[in-house]
């Protein structure tokens, strides 16, 4: 059983007008970065997961995206799954359970 760190990045579909991204793009142009082209604002969801293998962790995260984390009608997503040092996961578990 290995420990993995997961980052899911969810962003609005490219064909869907992104008002927040456009406002940020306009501000960057106004502040002297005219070379900036497409700005999209999404969200990142970070968590740790225990799994038998990297592939197993990736497959579970994909299922989570399709079930809950992403609405495919309006959003795209990318998944990053990395080996995580055990100490980092233990620390995040502790934060998760303290109240």
């Amino acid at each position, binding site marked *: 059983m290995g420990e993995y760190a997961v980052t899911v990045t969810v962003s*609005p579909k490219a064909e*869907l*007008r992104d*008002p*927040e991204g456009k*406002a940020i793009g306009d501000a960057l142009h106004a502040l002297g970065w005219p070379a900036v082209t497409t700005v999209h604002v999404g969200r990142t969801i970070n968590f740790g997961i225990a799994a038998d293998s990297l592939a197993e962790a990736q497959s579970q995260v994909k299922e989570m995206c399709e079930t*809950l*984390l992403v*609405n495919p*009608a*309006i959003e795209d997503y990318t998944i990053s799954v990395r080996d995580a040092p055990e100490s980092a996961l233990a620390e995040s578990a502790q934060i998760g359970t303290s109240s």
Partner: protein
Amino acid sequence: MIASLANPSLKASGSEGPGPSFVVAVPIFPGSNCEHDTQYALVQVGAETVFVHHSDKALPAETAAIYIPGGFAHGDYLRAGAIARFSPITAAIGRAGADGMPVLGVCNGFQILCEMGLLPGALAPNTQGRFLCRDVHVKVENIATPFSRAMVLNQVLRIPINHRQGRYFADDATLRHLADNGQILFRYCDAAGMVDESDLVHNPNGSIMAIAGVTNENGNVVGMMPHPERAIESRLGSADGRPVLESLVGGSSPGAERE
């Protein structure tokens, strides 16, 4: 005062005299905030309402229809409706809707129905990127549903909206299917009934094809962003939402209050 808050009236009745009552279940999620307006409005048109809790696994046996009220279920965290979709009561709503029971989702209720997959498409953040709260006009494009049968085709209703995430979106194939199958129920328009998708004054949130409400394939499940329950008395601004509720309860609207 505290007692009345702790023990809200779960049932309300507007039916007069004998005859079978028409019971509408109003599910309440953590963050729902239109349930009492909804109850009041439904009672005005003669229905009986019963509040059901999001953790309930079943609807009351006497339920004849479901009205999912607006609000911010589960704080709209992740996406509006994304968490509510997995509430126990939502599974019961899904089964009832699939079995043909009339189901109306208004605003957050519409978002929940889309997240459930009971209705096609999704509601994205408004094109302007901000919350909108004002009256809009919508045009009725299908009068064969339980929520529009008391109207005439192309009737224009003035009803308020109140949302940040109401821009209807679906891919081209879905939109074609909706149009071919009569599933586009309401479209935003001007007071004269003209629809212009690019006109953000009258298509307030930038919805694709100016869609304000859709039905499922069978026409018994309807979602709409405008709030008909907030437009049932002309002295409070508009009674144009009344035909939506009267369609559900009575089928026709003799003596309906008009502006």
